[in-house]
């Protein structure tokens, strides 16, 4: 294929994985990782090859299914946003303990600056924690090439490879030239089947093996084509540029940087190369997007009195993503002359769409709960988190996927009433079901609102795992059928919805209210698709 393509970083990963002979992609939607799976879902090659690409219920089920693909010798990609790796962590960390058979790439998209997330955790720490190789691309072309290499590396060392993107890599487009298309792997079974049964006796053996592999992994980092030492005459400072930080560095030196530069895109840390740089330079400036992963390690590694600067030293801001401007400052390059901001600009926060069913749900909920003295509403992750902002100011907490139900339960256990949970349909199936079972088992006095818009709306309207089955799921868990109530969130039904909420708050036990109306964004899309289909037929 000679054709040049203009691809998002996410799309470059997806295409690279397909060309590497992918058998299945496993993912739960999460910004900024969603477009990887969507690209594969729309791909002709994926259709021809029958590549599995249906959304998973959550990141843990995705990770485990991908490990199953690897078990039978085929290549699997699992994609998630950074906080998704917390959900998948049990499976992820233990996939390094079992080792892999077919290539397994765990793609995690971090979100420094929290554009669409509740924290800016750096997934490289998870990679180190699990003792697996980590890769992070600096360009979209490298993202394409790297995912192919990551599958090969995974099969070479028998371990999952963690590939890390950040928002700016995931959601930035550039020209990519694709490479050759590889066949999918044939089925094959592990040669050491006992490795996959992590009884203590096997796990201890595997752990020793895994630790023994670390030196080899470090050597592979030293020789990786994605890492490299670039000589520079000015030894006052050496620069370690990780992943996308390399771009912000080189933006300042179009003719080449006069400091020695180590471009770092594969881990574990190539200590020899970095020690060499430290021996030559008075100072090492570490540029890394996210948390000070490399900077912290270097402080423990370097034998020389070389000064290390970066996010910990204050040379770069401790929080937030790298920008061309904060990198300039760290390098001592003067910032451009910039115009002052106009004083007539005010913030424009995101808001629930006009006509969205969540609006009517919050409207009704607010009117009812304000009749009580000590109510609290525990929210969850999705569009409806925006209910925390004006005009609704309707929720008092939003922590992690599914926490609304369990936090409401805990608060109710401790005596709070009314304790209300608000959760979306997709978040409920992701991580709310088990919490609801806990609540039923202890007959917690909570009211759960599952605001069902029939989709995973926040990330762009992907399928929701429980559509059409929410009532039967709740009944199956053991919620009293008299207290599973469905309403249609429209202004015309306000009285009925309020009455339902009031009755269920008054009921001393677990009740579930399901306001159900399709997301207006997917409704518009479906109408448009139907129109187009009709006009094409005509």
């Amino acid at each position: 294929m000679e054709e040049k393509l203009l691809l998002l970083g996410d799309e470059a990963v997806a295409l690279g994985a397909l060309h590497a002979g992918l058998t299945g992609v496993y993912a739960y939607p999460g910004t900024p990782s969603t477009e990887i799976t969507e690209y594969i879902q729309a791909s002709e090659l994926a259709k021809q090859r029958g590549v599995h690409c249906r959304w998973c219920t959550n990141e843990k089920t995705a990770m485990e299914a991908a490990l199953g693909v690897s078990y039978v010798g085929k290549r699997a990609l699992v994609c998630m946003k950074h906080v998704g790796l917390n959900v998948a962590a049990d499976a992820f960390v233990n996939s390094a303990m079992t080792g892999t058979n077919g290539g397994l790439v765990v793609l995690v998209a971090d979100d420094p600056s929290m554009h669409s997330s509740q924290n800016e955790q750096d997934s490289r720490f998870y990679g180190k924690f699990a003792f697996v190789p980590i890769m992070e691309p600096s360009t979209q072309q490298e993202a394409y090439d790297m995912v192919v290499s990551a599958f090969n590396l995974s099969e070479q060392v028998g371990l999952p490879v963690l590939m890390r993107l950040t928002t700016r890599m995931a959601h930035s487009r550039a020209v990519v030239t694709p490479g050759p298309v590889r066949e999918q792997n044939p089925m094959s079974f592990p040669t050491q089947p006992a490795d996959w049964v992590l009884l203590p006796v096997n796990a201890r053996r595997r752990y020793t093996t895994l630790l023994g592999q670390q030196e080899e992994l470090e050597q592979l980092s030293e020789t990786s084509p994605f890492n490299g030492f670039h000589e520079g005459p000015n030894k006052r400072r050496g620069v370690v540029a990780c992943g996308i930080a390399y771009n912000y560095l080189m933006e300042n030196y179009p003719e080449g940087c006069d400091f020695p530069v180590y471009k770092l895109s594969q881990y574990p840390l190539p200590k020899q190369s970095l020690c060499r740089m430290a021996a030559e330079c008075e100072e090492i400036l570490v540029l890394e997007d996210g948390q000070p992963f490399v900077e912290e390690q270097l402080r423990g590694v370097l034998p020389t009195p070389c000064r290390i600067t970066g996010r910990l030293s204050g040379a770069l801001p401790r929080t937030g993503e790298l920008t061309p401007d904060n990198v300039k400052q760290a390098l001592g390059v003067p910032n451009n002359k910039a115009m002052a901001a106009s004083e007539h600009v005010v913030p424009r926060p995101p808001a629930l769409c006009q006509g969205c069913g969540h609006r009517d749900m919050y409207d009704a909920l607010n009117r009812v709960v304000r009749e009580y003295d000590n109510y609290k509403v525990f929210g969850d992750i999705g569009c409806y988190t925006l209910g925390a902002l004006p005009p609704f100011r309707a929720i008092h907490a939003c922590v992690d996927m599914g926490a609304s139900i369990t936090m409401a339960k805990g608060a109710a256990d401790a005596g709070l009433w009314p304790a209300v949970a608000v959760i979306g349909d997709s978040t409920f199936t992701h991580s709310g079901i088990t919490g609801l079972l806990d609540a039923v088992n202890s007959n917690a006095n909570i009211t759960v609102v599952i605001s069902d818009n029939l989709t995973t709306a926040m990330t762009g309207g992907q399928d929701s795992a429980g559509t059409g089955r929410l009532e039967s799921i709740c009944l199956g868990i053991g919620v009293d059928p008299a207290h599973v109530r469905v309403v249609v969130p429209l202004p015309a039904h306000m009285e009925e919805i309020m009455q339902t909420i009031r009755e269920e708050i008054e009921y001393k036990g677990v009740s579930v209210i399901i306001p159900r109306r399709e997301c207006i964004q997917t409704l518009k899309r479906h109408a448009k698709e139907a129109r187009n289909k009709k006009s094409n037929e005509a």
Partner: protein
Amino acid sequence: MKLDIILSGVGGQGILSIAAIIGEAALKEGLYIKQAEVHGMSQRGGDVQSNLRIASQPISSDLIALGGADVILSMEPMEALRYLPYLSENGWVVTNTAPFINIPNYPEVETVWNDLRSLPHVIMLDAERLAKEHNVPRAVNMVLLGAASPILGIDFDKIEQGVRRLFARKGDAVVDMNLRALACGREAAHQFMAERRDK
């Protein structure tokens, strides 16, 4: 050549389509491109922006530095002002003047326009009104792109080809509508610049 553009607006106004067409045109010219987009939560009626960088030499950074943008291309007047610190000394602002008011504290629109008028290099046009007048109400973003075309330094016919390619699968009627929108924006910009020169 080097062209750094900040596209701005409110979620849903179609700035990514503008970026896609300029990107298409640049790709066919054999230029290097980097375009950083915003997805996710901020798309819900919040302010959105995209950094589009085009050059004849390889481009390093995905983001434009403060004081580095050659053009701010905005679907909304206050959103144009939001990114002024990114505009270079000789940079242009091309903006729709029709405000998108979805917040209670939106400033007096006349003060926003005055800030814009005081800039040395600016093209202002009511792209929504123009789109309605020319019977292309759904192509407001293409009116704006047309208005920017005189100062982008990309051949106008390359931009037209970009429109043809991007909308080809939607049929000839859609392509024609977008081309008309492009042309009326371009004409309005020429007129605006001529009037400003005469003053």
